[in-house]
Protein backbone atom coordinates (compact mmCIF):
# COMPACT_ATOMS: atom_id res chain seq x y z
CA UNK A 1 0.00 0.00 0.00
CA UNK A 2 1.54 3.23 -1.03
CA UNK A 3 0.58 6.40 0.70
CA UNK A 4 1.66 9.94 0.55
CA UNK A 5 1.55 10.62 4.27
CA UNK A 6 5.02 10.21 5.53
CA UNK A 7 3.71 9.24 8.89
CA UNK A 8 0.45 8.57 10.57
CA UNK A 9 -0.10 10.61 13.63
CA UNK A 10 -2.15 8.21 15.63
CA UNK A 11 -3.25 10.21 18.55
CA UNK A 12 -5.73 10.02 21.34
CA UNK A 13 -7.83 13.06 21.93
CA UNK A 14 -9.41 13.36 25.33
CA UNK A 15 -12.39 15.64 25.47
CA UNK A 16 -13.69 17.66 28.34
CA UNK A 17 -16.64 15.35 28.64
CA UNK A 18 -14.28 12.44 29.31
CA UNK A 19 -14.73 10.89 25.91
CA UNK A 20 -11.42 9.64 24.54
CA UNK A 21 -11.11 9.22 20.81
CA UNK A 22 -8.23 7.50 19.13
CA UNK A 23 -7.63 8.26 15.50
CA UNK A 24 -5.27 9.41 12.82
CA UNK A 25 -4.71 13.10 12.73
CA UNK A 26 -6.01 14.44 9.48
CA UNK A 27 -5.89 18.16 9.91
CA UNK A 28 -5.86 21.00 12.35
CA UNK A 29 -6.91 24.57 11.88
CA UNK A 30 -6.26 27.86 13.55
CA UNK A 31 -8.80 27.20 16.27
CA UNK A 32 -7.23 23.84 16.93
CA UNK A 33 -10.30 22.10 15.64
CA UNK A 34 -9.13 18.59 14.94
CA UNK A 35 -10.17 16.24 12.22
CA UNK A 36 -9.52 12.61 12.91
CA UNK A 37 -9.95 9.72 10.55
CA UNK A 38 -10.43 6.07 11.28
CA UNK A 39 -11.43 6.67 14.82
CA UNK A 40 -12.21 4.34 17.62
CA UNK A 41 -13.31 5.15 21.08
CA UNK A 42 -10.65 4.07 23.49
CA UNK A 43 -11.12 3.11 27.08
CA UNK A 44 -14.74 2.25 27.48
CA UNK A 45 -17.19 1.41 24.83
CA UNK A 46 -19.74 3.09 26.98
CA UNK A 47 -20.18 5.55 24.20
CA UNK A 48 -21.81 3.23 21.71
CA UNK A 49 -23.16 6.06 19.64
CA UNK A 50 -19.69 6.40 18.21
CA UNK A 51 -19.57 2.88 16.87
CA UNK A 52 -20.36 3.68 13.28
CA UNK A 53 -18.36 6.85 13.07
CA UNK A 54 -15.20 6.65 11.01
CA UNK A 55 -14.14 10.26 10.72
CA UNK A 56 -14.92 13.18 12.89
CA UNK A 57 -14.33 16.83 13.41
CA UNK A 58 -13.73 17.85 16.98
CA UNK A 59 -14.24 21.43 17.93
CA UNK A 60 -11.10 22.82 19.45
CA UNK A 61 -12.75 24.17 22.54
CA UNK A 62 -13.88 20.81 23.83
CA UNK A 63 -10.48 19.21 23.71
CA UNK A 64 -8.93 18.57 27.09
CA UNK A 65 -5.77 16.76 26.07
CA UNK A 66 -4.21 15.29 23.03
CA UNK A 67 -1.77 12.42 23.29
CA UNK A 68 0.77 12.28 20.51
CA UNK A 69 2.93 9.30 19.55
CA UNK A 70 6.20 9.60 21.38
CA UNK A 71 8.45 8.39 18.61
CA UNK A 72 7.13 10.90 16.12
CA UNK A 73 7.82 13.76 18.40
CA UNK A 74 11.09 15.19 19.49
CA UNK A 75 10.09 16.20 22.97
CA UNK A 76 12.94 18.50 23.77
CA UNK A 77 12.54 20.30 20.46
CA UNK A 78 8.85 20.72 21.09
CA UNK A 79 9.49 22.23 24.49
CA UNK A 80 12.02 24.61 23.02
CA UNK A 81 9.59 25.57 20.27
CA UNK A 82 6.95 26.37 22.84
CA UNK A 83 9.41 28.51 24.72
CA UNK A 84 10.41 30.31 21.59
CA UNK A 85 6.89 31.47 20.82
CA UNK A 86 7.34 35.07 19.89
CA UNK A 87 6.32 37.02 22.92
CA UNK A 88 3.59 39.58 22.38
CA UNK A 89 4.69 43.07 21.56
CA UNK A 90 8.28 41.98 21.42
CA UNK A 91 8.71 42.04 17.67
Amino acid at each position, binding site marked *: *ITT*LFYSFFKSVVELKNDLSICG*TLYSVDQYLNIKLT*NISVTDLEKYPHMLSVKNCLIQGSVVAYMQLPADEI*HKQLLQDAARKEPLPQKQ
Partner: protein
Amino acid sequence: MSFFFFKKNWPGKTCGPLAPEEELVSACHLEKEEENEGEEEEEEEEEEDLDPDLEQEEEEENDLGDPTVLGAVHNTQRTLLSSPGVKAPGVLGMSLASLHFLWQTLDYLSPIPFWPTFPSTSSPARHFGPRLPSPDPTLFCSLLTSWPPRFSHLTQLHPQHQRILQQQQHSQTPSPPAKKPWCQQPDPYANLMTRKEKDWVIKVQMVQLQSINPRLDDYYYQEYYQKLEKKQVDEELLGRRNQVESLKLVTPYIQKAEAYESVVRIEGSLGQVAVSTCFSPRRAIDAVPHGTQEQDIEAASSQRLRVLYRIEKMFLQLLEIEEGWKYRPPQPCFSEQQSNQVEKLFQTLKTQEQNNLEEAADGFLQVLSVRKGKALVARLLPFLAQDQAITILLAITHHLPLLVRRDVADQALQMLFKPLGKCISHLTLHELLQGLQGLMLLPPGSSERPVTVVLQNQFGISLLYALLSHGEQLVSLDSSLEEPNSDHTAWTDMVVLIAWEIAQMPTASLAEPLAFPSNLLPLFCHHVDKQLVQQLEARMEFAWIY
Protein backbone atom coordinates in the same frame (compact mmCIF):
# COMPACT_ATOMS: atom_id res chain seq x y z
CA MET B 1 0.68 11.39 -23.08
CA SER B 2 -0.11 14.62 -21.48
CA PHE B 3 -3.41 15.21 -19.91
CA PHE B 4 -4.05 18.37 -21.82
CA PHE B 5 -3.88 16.78 -25.22
CA PHE B 6 -6.31 14.26 -23.98
CA LYS B 7 -8.79 16.85 -23.08
CA LYS B 8 -8.56 18.62 -26.34
CA ASN B 9 -9.48 15.46 -28.19
CA TRP B 10 -12.70 14.79 -26.48
CA PRO B 11 -14.45 18.03 -25.83
CA GLY B 12 -17.73 16.33 -26.28
CA LYS B 13 -17.12 13.74 -23.63
CA THR B 14 -17.23 16.01 -20.69
CA CYS B 15 -20.39 15.80 -18.76
CA GLY B 16 -23.02 18.20 -19.85
CA PRO B 17 -22.63 21.14 -22.15
CA LEU B 18 -19.73 23.23 -21.11
CA ALA B 19 -18.22 26.37 -22.46
CA PRO B 20 -14.72 25.82 -23.80
CA GLU B 21 -13.09 27.87 -21.15
CA GLU B 22 -14.67 25.74 -18.49
CA GLU B 23 -13.21 22.58 -19.88
CA LEU B 24 -10.28 22.62 -17.62
CA VAL B 25 -12.38 23.40 -14.64
CA SER B 26 -14.81 20.59 -15.13
CA ALA B 27 -12.07 18.15 -15.94
CA CYS B 28 -10.54 19.15 -12.68
CA HIS B 29 -13.73 18.31 -10.95
CA LEU B 30 -14.05 15.01 -12.71
CA GLU B 31 -10.62 14.01 -11.71
CA LYS B 32 -11.33 15.18 -8.24
CA GLU B 33 -14.48 13.16 -7.95
CA GLU B 34 -12.68 10.09 -9.05
CA GLU B 35 -9.98 10.56 -6.52
CA ASN B 36 -12.37 11.13 -3.75
CA GLU B 37 -14.31 7.97 -4.23
CA GLY B 38 -16.32 7.51 -1.18
CA GLU B 39 -15.56 10.96 0.06
CA GLU B 40 -18.23 13.53 -0.27
CA GLU B 41 -16.13 16.41 0.81
CA GLU B 42 -16.11 19.41 -1.41
CA GLU B 43 -12.85 20.57 -2.70
CA GLU B 44 -13.07 23.94 -1.08
CA GLU B 45 -13.92 22.59 2.31
CA GLU B 46 -11.05 20.23 2.17
CA GLU B 47 -8.58 22.87 1.24
CA GLU B 48 -9.59 25.08 4.06
CA ASP B 49 -8.99 22.40 6.55
CA LEU B 50 -5.56 21.58 5.42
CA ASP B 51 -3.04 22.07 8.11
CA PRO B 52 -0.92 25.08 7.23
CA ASP B 53 2.16 23.01 7.78
CA LEU B 54 0.88 20.41 5.40
CA GLU B 55 0.27 23.16 2.98
CA GLN B 56 3.83 24.21 3.37
CA GLU B 57 4.92 20.71 2.65
CA GLU B 58 2.98 20.09 -0.44
CA GLU B 59 1.58 23.11 -2.03
CA GLU B 60 4.24 25.57 -2.69
CA GLU B 61 4.94 24.55 -6.25
CA ASN B 62 5.02 27.81 -8.08
CA ASP B 63 7.55 26.79 -10.62
CA LEU B 64 6.34 23.88 -12.66
CA GLY B 65 5.21 25.88 -15.59
CA ASP B 66 6.51 23.46 -18.16
CA PRO B 67 3.54 21.59 -19.63
CA THR B 68 5.55 18.42 -20.03
CA VAL B 69 6.20 18.48 -16.36
CA LEU B 70 2.62 19.24 -15.59
CA GLY B 71 1.64 16.36 -17.74
CA ALA B 72 3.97 14.17 -15.82
CA VAL B 73 2.42 15.36 -12.63
CA HIS B 74 -0.94 14.39 -13.84
CA ASN B 75 0.20 11.00 -15.01
CA THR B 76 1.54 10.45 -11.57
CA GLN B 77 -1.80 11.28 -10.11
CA ARG B 78 -3.48 8.74 -12.30
CA THR B 79 -0.91 6.15 -11.43
CA LEU B 80 -1.59 6.71 -7.81
CA LEU B 81 -5.22 6.23 -8.50
CA SER B 82 -4.75 2.97 -10.25
CA SER B 83 -2.15 1.50 -7.95
CA PRO B 84 -3.51 -1.68 -6.54
CA GLY B 85 -4.56 -1.74 -2.99
CA VAL B 86 -4.50 1.96 -2.52
CA LYS B 87 -7.53 1.92 -0.38
CA ALA B 88 -6.91 4.14 2.53
CA PRO B 89 -9.65 6.44 1.41
CA GLY B 90 -9.43 8.98 4.13
CA VAL B 91 -5.75 9.50 3.90
CA LEU B 92 -5.38 8.99 0.23
CA GLY B 93 -8.29 11.16 -0.63
CA MET B 94 -6.74 13.92 1.32
CA SER B 95 -3.33 13.39 -0.10
CA LEU B 96 -4.58 13.23 -3.62
CA ALA B 97 -6.59 16.28 -2.94
CA SER B 98 -3.49 18.06 -1.91
CA LEU B 99 -1.72 16.80 -4.97
CA HIS B 100 -4.64 18.05 -6.89
CA PHE B 101 -4.48 21.29 -5.09
CA LEU B 102 -0.86 21.32 -5.99
CA TRP B 103 -1.71 20.85 -9.60
CA GLN B 104 -4.17 23.64 -9.38
CA THR B 105 -1.66 25.82 -7.70
CA LEU B 106 0.72 25.19 -10.53
CA ASP B 107 -2.06 25.99 -12.86
CA TYR B 108 -2.80 29.07 -10.91
CA LEU B 109 0.70 30.35 -10.77
CA SER B 110 2.01 29.43 -14.16
CA PRO B 111 2.58 32.37 -16.42
CA ILE B 112 0.62 32.77 -19.61
CA PRO B 113 3.51 32.13 -22.04
CA PHE B 114 3.65 28.51 -20.99
CA TRP B 115 0.30 27.72 -22.39
CA PRO B 116 0.75 28.51 -26.04
CA THR B 117 -1.11 25.41 -27.28
CA PHE B 118 -4.36 26.20 -25.63
CA PRO B 119 -5.47 29.63 -26.56
CA SER B 120 -9.01 28.84 -25.60
CA THR B 121 -8.10 28.04 -22.06
CA SER B 122 -5.87 30.93 -21.34
CA SER B 123 -8.53 32.98 -19.75
CA PRO B 124 -8.23 36.20 -17.88
CA ALA B 125 -9.20 34.24 -14.85
CA ARG B 126 -5.65 33.13 -14.68
CA HIS B 127 -4.56 36.52 -13.64
CA PHE B 128 -4.59 36.99 -9.99
CA GLY B 129 -4.44 39.87 -7.64
CA PRO B 130 -1.79 42.54 -7.79
CA ARG B 131 -0.43 41.46 -4.43
CA LEU B 132 1.35 38.40 -5.69
CA PRO B 133 4.54 39.07 -7.62
CA SER B 134 4.70 37.81 -11.16
CA PRO B 135 6.71 34.65 -11.33
CA ASP B 136 10.15 35.07 -12.64
CA PRO B 137 10.28 33.67 -16.17
CA THR B 138 13.96 32.88 -15.91
CA LEU B 139 13.16 30.67 -12.97
CA PHE B 140 10.81 28.64 -15.08
CA CYS B 141 13.14 28.40 -18.00
CA SER B 142 15.84 26.92 -15.90
CA LEU B 143 13.73 23.97 -14.86
CA LEU B 144 14.54 20.52 -16.04
CA THR B 145 11.83 18.87 -17.98
CA SER B 146 12.40 15.46 -16.54
CA TRP B 147 10.72 14.18 -13.43
CA PRO B 148 11.44 14.74 -10.64
CA PRO B 149 11.78 18.34 -11.52
CA ARG B 150 14.44 20.22 -9.74
CA PHE B 151 12.23 22.32 -7.60
CA SER B 152 13.65 25.70 -6.98
CA HIS B 153 14.38 26.92 -3.56
CA LEU B 154 10.83 28.09 -3.40
CA THR B 155 9.47 24.59 -3.38
CA GLN B 156 8.62 22.86 -0.23
CA LEU B 157 7.90 19.24 -0.70
CA HIS B 158 8.81 17.22 2.32
CA PRO B 159 11.68 14.90 1.44
CA GLN B 160 9.77 11.70 2.00
CA HIS B 161 6.84 13.00 0.05
CA GLN B 162 9.18 13.79 -2.76
CA ARG B 163 10.69 10.36 -2.58
CA ILE B 164 7.36 8.66 -2.75
CA LEU B 165 6.33 10.72 -5.74
CA GLN B 166 9.56 9.72 -7.44
CA GLN B 167 8.95 6.08 -6.72
CA GLN B 168 5.52 6.39 -8.15
CA GLN B 169 6.92 7.89 -11.28
CA HIS B 170 9.53 5.22 -11.67
CA SER B 171 7.20 2.37 -11.09
CA GLN B 172 4.41 3.49 -13.32
CA THR B 173 3.71 1.51 -16.48
CA PRO B 174 4.06 3.29 -19.76
CA SER B 175 0.51 2.43 -20.89
CA PRO B 176 -2.22 4.60 -19.55
CA PRO B 177 -4.38 3.13 -16.82
CA ALA B 178 -7.66 1.52 -17.71
CA LYS B 179 -9.84 3.99 -15.88
CA LYS B 180 -11.57 6.41 -18.08
CA PRO B 181 -12.29 9.55 -16.17
CA TRP B 182 -14.76 10.91 -18.65
CA CYS B 183 -17.11 8.02 -18.12
CA GLN B 184 -17.89 9.10 -14.61
CA GLN B 185 -21.29 10.15 -13.43
CA PRO B 186 -22.02 13.79 -13.88
CA ASP B 187 -20.43 15.69 -11.07
CA PRO B 188 -23.10 17.37 -8.94
CA TYR B 189 -20.55 19.80 -7.54
CA ALA B 190 -19.13 20.97 -10.79
CA ASN B 191 -18.91 24.65 -11.49
CA LEU B 192 -19.97 25.83 -8.10
CA MET B 193 -17.01 28.11 -8.08
CA THR B 194 -15.41 29.80 -11.00
CA ARG B 195 -11.74 29.66 -11.61
CA LYS B 196 -11.37 33.15 -10.35
CA GLU B 197 -13.05 32.33 -7.08
CA LYS B 198 -10.94 29.27 -6.60
CA ASP B 199 -7.85 31.27 -7.27
CA TRP B 200 -8.91 33.76 -4.70
CA VAL B 201 -9.43 31.13 -2.05
CA ILE B 202 -6.07 29.62 -2.81
CA LYS B 203 -4.45 33.00 -2.57
CA VAL B 204 -6.02 33.64 0.80
CA GLN B 205 -4.63 30.35 2.09
CA MET B 206 -1.21 31.13 0.73
CA VAL B 207 -1.16 34.34 2.68
CA GLN B 208 -0.91 32.26 5.83
CA LEU B 209 2.29 30.75 4.64
CA GLN B 210 4.10 33.98 4.22
CA SER B 211 6.82 34.13 6.71
CA ILE B 212 9.76 36.42 6.95
CA ASN B 213 11.38 34.38 9.62
CA PRO B 214 10.41 30.74 9.23
CA ARG B 215 13.03 29.72 11.75
CA LEU B 216 11.07 31.50 14.39
CA ASP B 217 7.54 31.13 13.14
CA ASP B 218 7.85 27.48 12.40
CA TYR B 219 10.65 26.51 14.73
CA TYR B 220 9.66 22.94 15.45
CA TYR B 221 9.10 21.92 11.85
CA GLN B 222 12.29 23.49 10.55
CA GLU B 223 14.46 22.04 13.29
CA TYR B 224 12.83 18.61 13.21
CA TYR B 225 13.36 18.15 9.51
CA GLN B 226 16.86 19.46 9.72
CA LYS B 227 17.59 16.72 12.18
CA LEU B 228 15.79 14.21 9.98
CA GLU B 229 17.79 15.24 6.96
CA LYS B 230 20.99 15.08 8.91
CA LYS B 231 20.12 11.58 9.99
CA GLN B 232 19.44 10.61 6.39
CA VAL B 233 22.77 12.05 5.34
CA ASP B 234 24.49 10.08 8.07
CA GLU B 235 22.71 6.96 6.95
CA GLU B 236 23.88 7.55 3.42
CA LEU B 237 27.40 8.02 4.60
CA LEU B 238 27.19 4.75 6.46
CA GLY B 239 26.71 3.19 3.10
CA ARG B 240 23.02 2.57 3.13
CA ARG B 241 22.40 3.82 -0.35
CA ASN B 242 19.30 5.94 -0.15
CA GLN B 243 18.54 7.24 -3.55
CA VAL B 244 16.96 10.14 -1.82
CA GLU B 245 18.23 13.59 -2.09
CA SER B 246 16.56 15.38 0.70
CA LEU B 247 15.38 18.66 -0.57
CA LYS B 248 16.18 21.73 1.30
CA LEU B 249 13.02 22.82 3.01
CA VAL B 250 12.53 26.50 2.73
CA THR B 251 9.38 28.43 3.34
CA PRO B 252 8.75 30.63 0.37
CA TYR B 253 9.55 34.21 0.89
CA ILE B 254 6.71 36.16 -0.58
CA GLN B 255 6.51 39.84 -0.12
CA LYS B 256 4.61 40.11 3.10
CA ALA B 257 1.52 42.20 3.26
CA GLU B 258 2.42 45.55 4.63
CA ALA B 259 2.44 45.54 8.34
CA TYR B 260 -0.14 47.75 9.78
CA GLU B 261 -0.44 49.17 13.17
CA SER B 262 -3.69 47.73 14.32
CA VAL B 263 -3.67 49.43 17.65
CA VAL B 264 -3.02 53.10 17.53
CA ARG B 265 -2.21 54.84 20.75
CA ILE B 266 -2.58 58.54 20.66
CA GLU B 267 -0.90 60.48 23.40
CA GLY B 268 -3.30 61.61 25.98
CA SER B 269 -6.21 59.61 24.74
CA LEU B 270 -8.08 57.19 26.88
CA GLY B 271 -7.53 53.67 25.65
CA GLN B 272 -7.01 52.89 22.00
CA VAL B 273 -8.21 54.16 18.72
CA ALA B 274 -9.67 51.30 16.76
CA VAL B 275 -8.11 50.89 13.37
CA SER B 276 -9.95 48.40 11.27
CA THR B 277 -8.62 46.94 8.09
CA CYS B 278 -9.67 44.04 5.98
CA PHE B 279 -7.43 41.80 8.04
CA SER B 280 -8.93 42.67 11.34
CA PRO B 281 -12.25 44.33 10.96
CA ARG B 282 -12.75 44.74 14.65
CA ARG B 283 -9.94 44.76 17.06
CA ALA B 284 -11.41 46.70 19.84
CA ILE B 285 -9.93 45.08 22.89
CA ASP B 286 -6.26 44.69 23.43
CA ALA B 287 -6.32 41.25 24.93
CA VAL B 288 -2.57 40.95 24.96
CA PRO B 289 -0.99 41.86 28.26
CA HIS B 290 1.53 44.63 28.25
CA GLY B 291 4.54 44.89 30.43
CA THR B 292 5.86 42.16 32.63
CA GLN B 293 4.02 40.04 35.03
CA GLU B 294 6.70 40.02 37.66
CA GLN B 295 4.55 41.62 40.28
CA ASP B 296 1.95 38.94 40.00
CA ILE B 297 4.48 36.19 40.26
CA GLU B 298 6.12 37.67 43.29
CA ALA B 299 2.84 37.61 45.05
CA ALA B 300 2.46 33.91 44.43
CA SER B 301 3.00 32.08 47.65
CA SER B 302 4.05 28.81 46.24
CA GLN B 303 7.74 28.23 46.45
CA ARG B 304 7.64 25.71 43.69
CA LEU B 305 6.01 28.10 41.29
CA ARG B 306 8.72 30.61 41.97
CA VAL B 307 11.40 28.08 41.23
CA LEU B 308 9.69 27.01 38.03
CA TYR B 309 9.33 30.59 36.96
CA ARG B 310 13.02 31.19 37.54
CA ILE B 311 13.88 28.08 35.57
CA GLU B 312 11.79 29.22 32.63
CA LYS B 313 13.48 32.58 32.58
CA MET B 314 16.84 30.88 32.56
CA PHE B 315 15.68 28.60 29.79
CA LEU B 316 14.97 31.56 27.57
CA GLN B 317 18.51 32.72 28.13
CA LEU B 318 19.85 29.26 27.45
CA LEU B 319 17.92 29.04 24.20
CA GLU B 320 19.45 32.32 23.09
CA ILE B 321 22.89 31.02 23.87
CA GLU B 322 22.27 27.80 21.99
CA GLU B 323 20.90 29.66 19.02
CA GLY B 324 23.87 31.99 18.99
CA TRP B 325 26.19 29.01 19.13
CA LYS B 326 24.48 27.22 16.29
CA TYR B 327 24.62 30.14 13.95
CA ARG B 328 27.90 31.59 14.99
CA PRO B 329 30.34 32.88 12.37
CA PRO B 330 32.95 30.26 11.63
CA GLN B 331 35.14 30.87 14.66
CA PRO B 332 35.08 28.02 17.13
CA CYS B 333 35.15 30.13 20.26
CA PHE B 334 32.59 32.35 21.88
CA SER B 335 32.03 35.89 20.87
CA GLU B 336 32.16 38.36 23.68
CA GLN B 337 28.44 38.79 23.66
CA GLN B 338 27.97 35.07 24.00
CA SER B 339 30.39 34.87 26.90
CA ASN B 340 28.49 37.63 28.60
CA GLN B 341 25.25 35.78 28.10
CA VAL B 342 26.72 32.63 29.55
CA GLU B 343 28.12 34.49 32.50
CA LYS B 344 24.83 36.17 33.18
CA LEU B 345 23.00 32.90 33.08
CA PHE B 346 25.52 31.27 35.34
CA GLN B 347 25.14 34.02 37.90
CA THR B 348 21.39 33.66 37.77
CA LEU B 349 21.76 29.96 38.32
CA LYS B 350 24.03 30.40 41.25
CA THR B 351 21.62 32.94 42.70
CA GLN B 352 24.51 35.15 43.42
CA GLU B 353 22.30 38.01 44.35
CA GLN B 354 21.51 36.24 47.56
CA ASN B 355 23.79 37.56 50.25
CA ASN B 356 23.47 34.55 52.39
CA LEU B 357 25.65 31.82 51.01
CA GLU B 358 23.41 29.15 52.31
CA GLU B 359 20.43 30.65 50.60
CA ALA B 360 22.38 30.83 47.42
CA ALA B 361 23.21 27.18 47.57
CA ASP B 362 19.64 26.50 48.43
CA GLY B 363 18.39 28.29 45.34
CA PHE B 364 20.69 26.25 43.18
CA LEU B 365 19.58 23.04 44.80
CA GLN B 366 15.96 23.94 44.34
CA VAL B 367 16.59 24.33 40.66
CA LEU B 368 18.27 20.97 40.59
CA SER B 369 15.45 19.30 42.46
CA VAL B 370 13.11 19.85 39.54
CA ARG B 371 13.39 17.82 36.37
CA LYS B 372 13.34 20.95 34.24
CA GLY B 373 16.14 22.40 36.27
CA LYS B 374 18.25 19.31 35.72
CA ALA B 375 17.65 19.57 32.00
CA LEU B 376 18.65 23.21 32.12
CA VAL B 377 21.91 22.52 33.92
CA ALA B 378 22.70 19.57 31.69
CA ARG B 379 22.32 21.73 28.61
CA LEU B 380 24.17 24.65 30.09
CA LEU B 381 27.25 22.74 31.23
CA PRO B 382 28.91 22.45 27.81
CA PHE B 383 28.86 26.22 27.46
CA LEU B 384 30.35 27.04 30.81
CA ALA B 385 33.94 27.98 31.41
CA GLN B 386 36.03 25.37 33.15
CA ASP B 387 36.02 26.92 36.58
CA GLN B 388 32.31 27.59 36.42
CA ALA B 389 31.64 24.00 35.44
CA ILE B 390 33.80 22.74 38.26
CA THR B 391 31.92 24.87 40.73
CA ILE B 392 28.73 23.23 39.65
CA LEU B 393 30.25 19.79 39.74
CA LEU B 394 31.56 20.26 43.24
CA ALA B 395 28.28 21.68 44.43
CA ILE B 396 26.46 18.68 43.03
CA THR B 397 28.93 16.26 44.55
CA HIS B 398 28.71 17.94 47.89
CA HIS B 399 24.95 17.83 48.01
CA LEU B 400 24.66 14.50 46.29
CA PRO B 401 22.73 12.68 49.03
CA LEU B 402 20.16 15.43 49.13
CA LEU B 403 19.79 15.51 45.38
CA VAL B 404 19.51 11.76 45.22
CA ARG B 405 16.78 11.74 47.78
CA ARG B 406 14.86 14.41 45.94
CA ASP B 407 15.26 12.62 42.64
CA VAL B 408 13.50 9.45 43.69
CA ALA B 409 10.32 10.35 41.83
CA ASP B 410 11.84 11.75 38.64
CA GLN B 411 14.95 9.61 38.22
CA ALA B 412 16.17 12.42 36.01
CA LEU B 413 19.66 12.92 37.37
CA GLN B 414 20.99 10.60 34.66
CA MET B 415 20.90 13.39 32.12
CA LEU B 416 23.55 15.21 34.09
CA PHE B 417 25.98 12.32 33.95
CA LYS B 418 27.45 12.87 30.53
CA PRO B 419 28.08 16.63 30.79
CA LEU B 420 29.45 16.22 34.31
CA GLY B 421 31.68 13.41 33.17
CA LYS B 422 33.32 15.78 30.75
CA CYS B 423 34.25 18.30 33.41
CA ILE B 424 35.40 15.69 35.88
CA SER B 425 38.53 15.31 33.81
CA HIS B 426 39.46 18.90 34.65
CA LEU B 427 39.41 18.42 38.40
CA THR B 428 42.57 18.63 40.41
CA LEU B 429 43.21 16.10 43.11
CA HIS B 430 42.70 18.66 45.77
CA GLU B 431 39.33 19.71 44.46
CA LEU B 432 38.36 16.10 44.08
CA LEU B 433 39.20 15.36 47.66
CA GLN B 434 37.26 18.35 48.83
CA GLY B 435 34.23 17.16 46.98
CA LEU B 436 34.44 13.61 48.21
CA GLN B 437 35.24 14.37 51.78
CA GLY B 438 31.82 15.81 52.37
CA LEU B 439 30.37 12.43 51.50
CA MET B 440 32.48 10.59 53.97
CA LEU B 441 31.79 12.66 57.04
CA LEU B 442 29.64 11.05 59.61
CA PRO B 443 26.81 13.43 60.30
CA PRO B 444 26.14 13.99 63.96
CA GLY B 445 23.69 11.59 65.48
CA SER B 446 23.93 9.05 62.68
CA SER B 447 26.12 6.06 62.11
CA GLU B 448 25.59 6.09 58.41
CA ARG B 449 27.76 7.99 56.06
CA PRO B 450 26.10 10.01 53.31
CA VAL B 451 27.88 7.90 50.77
CA THR B 452 25.61 4.94 51.47
CA VAL B 453 22.65 6.78 50.02
CA VAL B 454 24.77 7.68 47.05
CA LEU B 455 25.76 4.10 46.43
CA GLN B 456 22.19 3.01 46.21
CA ASN B 457 21.37 5.44 43.45
CA GLN B 458 22.42 4.85 39.86
CA PHE B 459 23.53 8.38 39.16
CA GLY B 460 25.23 8.62 42.51
CA ILE B 461 27.27 5.50 42.09
CA SER B 462 28.16 6.36 38.51
CA LEU B 463 29.38 9.79 39.53
CA LEU B 464 31.33 8.33 42.39
CA TYR B 465 33.02 5.76 40.20
CA ALA B 466 33.86 8.42 37.65
CA LEU B 467 35.40 10.60 40.34
CA LEU B 468 37.41 7.71 41.74
CA SER B 469 38.62 6.76 38.32
CA HIS B 470 39.79 10.28 37.67
CA GLY B 471 41.47 10.42 41.03
CA GLU B 472 43.31 7.23 40.26
CA GLN B 473 44.46 8.67 36.97
CA LEU B 474 45.75 11.78 38.66
CA VAL B 475 47.54 9.87 41.37
CA SER B 476 49.18 7.40 39.03
CA LEU B 477 50.41 10.25 36.86
CA ASP B 478 51.65 12.02 39.91
CA SER B 479 53.33 9.10 41.59
CA SER B 480 56.62 9.96 40.00
CA LEU B 481 57.08 12.50 42.76
CA GLU B 482 57.27 9.73 45.34
CA GLU B 483 57.05 12.02 48.29
CA PRO B 484 54.40 11.48 50.95
CA ASN B 485 51.87 14.12 50.09
CA SER B 486 49.07 15.05 52.43
CA ASP B 487 46.73 14.83 49.53
CA HIS B 488 47.96 11.40 48.66
CA THR B 489 47.43 10.08 52.12
CA ALA B 490 44.02 11.65 52.25
CA TRP B 491 43.33 9.99 48.95
CA THR B 492 44.38 6.61 50.16
CA ASP B 493 42.24 6.90 53.26
CA MET B 494 39.33 7.96 51.11
CA VAL B 495 39.66 5.02 48.79
CA VAL B 496 39.91 2.56 51.64
CA LEU B 497 36.87 4.01 53.28
CA ILE B 498 34.84 3.90 50.13
CA ALA B 499 35.89 0.37 49.43
CA TRP B 500 34.84 -0.61 52.88
CA GLU B 501 31.48 1.07 52.45
CA ILE B 502 30.88 -0.72 49.18
CA ALA B 503 31.79 -4.01 50.79
CA GLN B 504 29.39 -3.33 53.60
CA MET B 505 26.45 -2.85 51.31
CA PRO B 506 24.34 -5.85 50.47
CA THR B 507 24.80 -6.58 46.79
CA ALA B 508 21.15 -6.12 46.08
CA SER B 509 21.16 -2.51 47.25
CA LEU B 510 24.12 -1.46 45.16
CA ALA B 511 22.90 0.40 42.14
CA GLU B 512 24.18 -0.47 38.71
CA PRO B 513 26.38 2.29 37.39
CA LEU B 514 25.86 3.91 34.02
CA ALA B 515 29.52 3.42 33.21
CA PHE B 516 32.16 1.32 34.85
CA PRO B 517 35.67 2.74 34.54
CA SER B 518 38.30 0.17 33.84
CA ASN B 519 40.87 1.40 36.31
CA LEU B 520 38.63 1.07 39.30
CA LEU B 521 39.49 -2.41 40.40
CA PRO B 522 43.24 -1.90 40.05
CA LEU B 523 42.72 1.17 42.20
CA PHE B 524 41.15 -0.87 44.90
CA CYS B 525 43.76 -3.57 44.58
CA HIS B 526 46.43 -1.01 45.27
CA HIS B 527 45.07 0.19 48.50
CA VAL B 528 43.02 -2.57 49.95
CA ASP B 529 43.67 -6.09 51.17
CA LYS B 530 42.85 -9.18 49.19
CA GLN B 531 39.83 -10.22 51.16
CA LEU B 532 38.21 -6.86 50.74
CA VAL B 533 38.99 -6.92 47.05
CA GLN B 534 37.22 -10.22 46.73
CA GLN B 535 34.21 -8.81 48.46
CA LEU B 536 34.29 -5.82 46.18
CA GLU B 537 34.60 -7.98 43.15
CA ALA B 538 31.58 -9.98 44.16
CA ARG B 539 29.61 -6.83 44.54
CA MET B 540 30.76 -4.99 41.51
CA GLU B 541 30.11 -7.99 39.31
CA PHE B 542 32.45 -7.55 36.46
CA ALA B 543 34.62 -9.98 34.61
CA TRP B 544 37.88 -10.28 36.50
CA ILE B 545 40.61 -11.46 34.20
CA TYR B 546 43.86 -12.37 35.88
